């Protein structure tokens, strides 16, 4: 077991974990943050995307011990005082989802994208979301949602 200390969605947590435990497992199984989902076995789908010290990562491809000392933000840490984050709101507004399985990862990656490029072109949005797969929407409304969020000054 290895001791880790980190901040998740604003709360300080400390735990003893097996070194082999993946960050996504830690979030889901230890902290009960099941908003972050697992969609594949190959680190291709991006459904598990969270922010680690402010940048997007696939939490199925990071060990929990590697997050020692870091600040993690998941989809569950976005809303403030009952108000959805602008990007969450835009996905709702533009119907940027069907089954919703890819949505937590899409939103986390979209926020990362808008932080670095507040006014992305359609092409830049598609390239920026390359690591996130959606089996339902054909991406059309996902791209619209990101454009909508950008127009509202979405990165925050």
């Amino acid at each position: 077991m290895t001791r880790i200390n980190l901040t998740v969605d604003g709360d300080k947590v400390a735990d003893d974990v097996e070194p082999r435990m993946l960050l996504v497992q830690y979030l889901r199984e230890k902290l009960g943050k099941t908003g972050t989902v697992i969609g594949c076995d190959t680190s291709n789908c991006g459904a598990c995307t969270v922010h680690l010290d402010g940048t997007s990562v696939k939490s199925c491809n990071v060990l929990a011990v590697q997050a020692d000392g870091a600040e993690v933000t998941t989809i569950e840490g976005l809303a403030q005082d009952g108000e959805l984050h602008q990007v969450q709101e835009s996905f709702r507004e533009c119907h940027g989802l069907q089954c919703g399985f890819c949505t937590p990862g899409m939103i986390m990656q979209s926020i990362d994208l808008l932080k670095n490029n507040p006014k992305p072109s359609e092409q830049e949005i598609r390239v920026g979301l390359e690591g996130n797969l959606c089996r339902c929407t054909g991406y059309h409304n996902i791209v619209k949602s990101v454009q909508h969020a950008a127009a509202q000054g979405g990165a925050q």
Partner: protein
Amino acid sequence: MIPAQFDYLAPTTVEEALAALGEHGDDAKILAGGQSLLPVLRMRLNAPEVVIDLGKIDSLRGIRDDGDAIVIGAMTQHSVVEHDPLVEEHAGLIHQAVEHLADVQIRHRGTFGGALAHADPAGDLGAPALALGAQFVIQGPGGTRTVEADDFFVDLFETAIGEDEILVAVRVPKHTGWGSCYEKFVRVAHQWPIVAVAATVKMEGGTIAEARIGLTNMGNTALRARASEAALVGQPATEEGVAAAAALAAEGTHPPSDLNGESAYRKHLATVLVRRAVLNAAGA
């Protein structure tokens, strides 16, 4: 799937990491960004007893100007290399290849040194490293040595890094003012290329004075297209001038056959991509 059990060490200096490697030998595995190693461990293709994480060694991160070369620390993340002005100005080929490597999330974690040490023949950084004549700075118990790019890639997933050694940095000779182009042929976005070509050329007037070309996924290691390089010297940067040299691109290569394409198809692709890459690099 999750990895088998292992012990985890997170040294804060290269010396500590080397000592741990020395103690555990081939039971140990180095962890850089984990973007190739963790998938391997999760699929249980490998099950080291000890994992030595280089993530807390700050001295392995960063990019600096070293006169006639730039030096990229092994643990520098792809996303840092991608946006670094020194890399863009003096090693344009690396800048272009990194931009198209994997996806944003993977580039945030994966490292320059990790990708090269992994030595996947389909990896995007081997060909640019060969074309630019990169020098690999490797540290072991007896000190530091430098290995030329042409001697670094030994076989499939095998490099000149010894079992008791760590890749600490890569020196890339400046190619300021050279044109460059990385042509990556891929079926699915954010994946490894079926074939890719890394070309950098030095122009004098409208003529190619020197060309250096690396090939991705055309054999067990990244390769140089030496026949094409030689045939390009003195040629005008036109379709006709480049065509004959490009036709030699696959000479001496033994590309794999797999789901994405037969060996013969890859050989054909290499000739097409060399033509495109050289013309683009020459600004034609």
